[in-house]
């Protein structure tokens, strides 16, 4: 460490450090080590795969619904099962797929993009995954045992209340919400701390990749929005289990309180899913256009504005509930205003492509598909923001079309783009480009065949959430068409799975930076080593890896124990060497205790009290500070 700086790293030193760092940060093969791991990449990989499995499951439910609706007066699926199907489809897609997968990809990428060795709170991160897994498994087991919720992913009271939904079905739903929100909130806190405190030296806020900006805004939105649904679901389960009256009009409660709380979460939720996708799109556009993003500052402003406006829109889900008209006009204006930042971003991406030298590979194809589909969904959103028009369109298939254009177009297409783009980083191998093109075109065409007709169905009077419809209303052909499109989407997703499975073994080796991208995750090997970066990168410009060679790095973080570099929040000046948590089994046990606590309280309200004791014990074991003796050993040479 006495050599004069700057200098070039010496190869022998690199080999030695690699061995030592791998010992310090690595995760072994034993079951215990796997359960105790706090490596953000391993946790994120589990998170992504689990969320993707939920995506496929929810997709299968959608296919079942489409098969039922392919013809009028169909008797394939009885109404009770159908209502469970659409409730589980929406619930799984929103709570177990869309939000978790976006956060999971962020858990993988954010530390790498920041140039740091692990996420800010690694044990909390491991805990988050287990809680998410247990919540998802619980609701799916309930569903497979014919105890799946059947009152819609929005669980409006009084339908979901104790009187009209007796039994345990809705209780499982409400607790699943608690599980997933705990998981999501934990990740949000980790991401904020990582982005603000662990950015590579020199990565000032003004040099932050847009994906990090998107995740920062998203995480703050999670923090403000998710408590609303946790509060609402707690009120609901209290009404159901211990006889409170939050939503019971007879005892002074109000059904609309539920709707306000739910949509105060539910609308920002859409943007919580959508903003990370925008971050992904920006990364991909920059890389494949080989041009820095057009109007960076405006893009950041657009993200922040979208995040703020998203909290002013929730009432547009409630225009038909008889609210005062003057108030509604405010929400119309706010809802329409969100088109301004969105429109700006769309322009900036196309402008970047227009002015760049684009290479049309699969990730970019999905991004173009995203633009074509999402803009249409955005425009129907403007229509729905208009109170009088909404009164015709609300709760019809027009809305089903609209939000699938926004969510599949705005989030799933970017997500598939992201899979193709980052798969080499995750696995070290590229996905097949040929299958990728089939995947894209089948998805793009299948999507439009499925969902475009739904606009017309809605205008032709078809309400949502109906398990069947009468013959003779003119809805037959379009419904059949829609079902055919859904089968195409199914085939496309299947193709993706085949592609991923094959490429994992036979894919073309990727190398560190196969696309010539500019962000820091491409500065390390693919897949990254357990410690992410041997030397902490120094960032000298907005497109870190496109700056003139050689790349600058810092040394001095201990290879012998887990340290991450903390930098100042705004200017990213190196500040302290922060200890990063060792692996621990306690997050896993805490998650088990939490699961017992939540599930037991469905069956016995007193479990709210006694169930918290094991959780407290586990938490104390988890959080117990490291004694000074150990600390001193650690810092000894």
């Amino acid at each position, binding site marked *: 460490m006495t050599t004069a700086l*700057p200098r070039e790293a010496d190869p022998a030193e690199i080999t030695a450090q690699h061995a030592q760092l791998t010992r310090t940060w690595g995760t072994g093969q034993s079951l215990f080590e796997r359960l105790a791991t706090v490596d953000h990449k391993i946790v994120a990989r589990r998170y992504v795969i689990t969320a993707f499995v939920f995506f496929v499951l929810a997709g299968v439910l959608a296919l079942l619904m489409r098969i039922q609706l392919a013809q009028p007066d169909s008797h394939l699926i009885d109404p009770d099962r159908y209502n469970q199907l659409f409730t589980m489809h929406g619930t799984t897609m929103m709570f177990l797929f869309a939000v978790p997968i976006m956060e999971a990809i962020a858990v993988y990428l954010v530390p790498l993009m920041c140039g740091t060795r692990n996420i800010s709170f690694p044990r909390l991160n491991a805990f988050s995954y287990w809680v998410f897994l247990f919540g998802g498994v619980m609701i799916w087991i309930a569903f497979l045992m014919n105890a799946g919720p059947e009152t819609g992913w929005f669980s409006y009271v009084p339908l979901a209340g104790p009187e009209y939904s007796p039994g345990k079905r809705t209780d499982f739903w409400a607790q699943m919400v608690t599980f997933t929100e705990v998981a999501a909130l934990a990740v949000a*806190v980790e991401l904020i701390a990582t982005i603000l405190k662990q950015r590579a030296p020199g990565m000032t806020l003004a040099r932050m990749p847009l994906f990090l900006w998107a995740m920062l805004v998203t995480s703050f939105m999670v923090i403000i929005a998710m408590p609303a649904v946790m509060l609402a679901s707690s*009120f609901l389960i209290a009404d159901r289990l211990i006889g409170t009256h939050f939503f019971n009009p007879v*005892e002074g409660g109000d059904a609309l309180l539920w709707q*306000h709380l739910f949509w105060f979460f539910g609308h920002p939720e859409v943007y919580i899913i959508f903003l990370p996708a925008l971050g992904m799109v920006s990364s991909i556009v920059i890389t494949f256009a080989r041009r820095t993003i057009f109007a960076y500052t405006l893009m950041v402003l657009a993200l922040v504005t979208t995040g703020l406006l998203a909290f002013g829109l929730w009432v547009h889900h409630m225009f038909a509930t008889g609210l005062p008209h003057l108030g509604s006009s405010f929400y119309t204006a706010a809802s329409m205003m969100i088109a301004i930042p969105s429109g700006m971003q769309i322009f900036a991406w196309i402008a970047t492509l227009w002015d760049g030298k684009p290479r049309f590979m699969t990730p970019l194809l999905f991004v173009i598909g995203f633009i074509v589909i999402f803009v249409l969904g955005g425009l129907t959103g403007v229509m729905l923001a208009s109170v009088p028009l909404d009164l015709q369109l609300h709760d019809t298939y027009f809305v089903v079309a609209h939000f699938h254009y926004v969510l599949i177009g705005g989030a799933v297409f970017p997500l598939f783009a992201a899979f193709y783009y980052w798969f080499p980083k995750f696995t070290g191998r590229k996905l097949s480009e040929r299958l990728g093109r089939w995947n894209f075109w089948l998805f793009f065409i299948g999507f439009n065949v499925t969902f475009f007709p739904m606009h017309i169905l809605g205008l032709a009077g078809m309400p949502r959430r109906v398990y069947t419809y009468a013959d003779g209303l003119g809805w037959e052909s379009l419904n059949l068409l829609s079902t055919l499109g859904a089968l195409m989407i199914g085939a496309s997703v299947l193709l993706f799975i085949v592609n991923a499975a094959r490429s994992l073994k036979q894919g073309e080796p990727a190398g560190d930076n196969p696309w010539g991208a500019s962000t820091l995750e491409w500065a390390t090997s693919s897949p990254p080593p357990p410690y992410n970066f041997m*030397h902490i990168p120094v960032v000298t410009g907005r497109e870190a890896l496109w700056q003139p060679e050689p790349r600058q790095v810092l*040394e*001095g973080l201990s290879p012998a124990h887990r340290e991450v570099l903390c930098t100042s929040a705004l200017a990213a000046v190196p500040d*302290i060497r922060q200890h990063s948590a060792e692996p621990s089994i306690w997050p896993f046990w805490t998650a088990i205790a939490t699961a017992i606590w939540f599930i037991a309280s469905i069956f016995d309200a007193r479990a709210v009290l006694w169930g918290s004791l094991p959780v407290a014990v586990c938490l104390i074991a988890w959080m117990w500070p490291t004694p*000074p003796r150990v600390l001193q050993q650690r810092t000894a040479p």
Partner: protein
Amino acid sequence: MKPRIVGDVSSLPDAAFSHRSLIWWGVLGFILIEGTVFVLAGGAYFFLMNHSTPWPPHRVPPELLLGTCFTVLMMLSEIPNVWADRAAHGEHLRQTRIGLALMTLIGLALMVIRYFEFQTLNVSWDDNAYGSIVWALLFLHTVHLVTDWVDTLVLTVFAHMHDLERTHFSDVADNCLYWHFVAIAWLPIYALLYWVPRMMK
């Protein structure tokens, strides 16, 4: 091309206080989450109030005595809390130990008062929506009180078992920060539970 090493961070400190520490940001994140919960629960209180006259429906607000005792003690606890915070920042071991022990005792006293406070609300959670929201608010605050008390207890035990390093003093300071939140969050809830019904008369 090989990267060029341009600096060495090994001389940087390995722990720091407040916004320089990672944990502090985590604590802040959770304060933000729970603050949002309180704000929304307060919003729900007003929402239900607007749909129900008279408020409370049976016209009997909670007894003032215990709630006010709790409030006074909670506010007084800020004095040792600030003192402990300063001791931690100054890395004074003995004062920090005393401060932590004091906060544990005060927390215990507060929880005892809180236990009886639940019995002077003059309403049960299953009487009506008013009772439900009153219990919900008090329960929510109690959860935070108990959580922070357990955290304080753990730190107290730990501080009396070991000498403390800077990172531990930083943990104590973060715990004091959280106590500020628990104390400050109580004031609007106290006003909602005890004074709003009296003003509605």
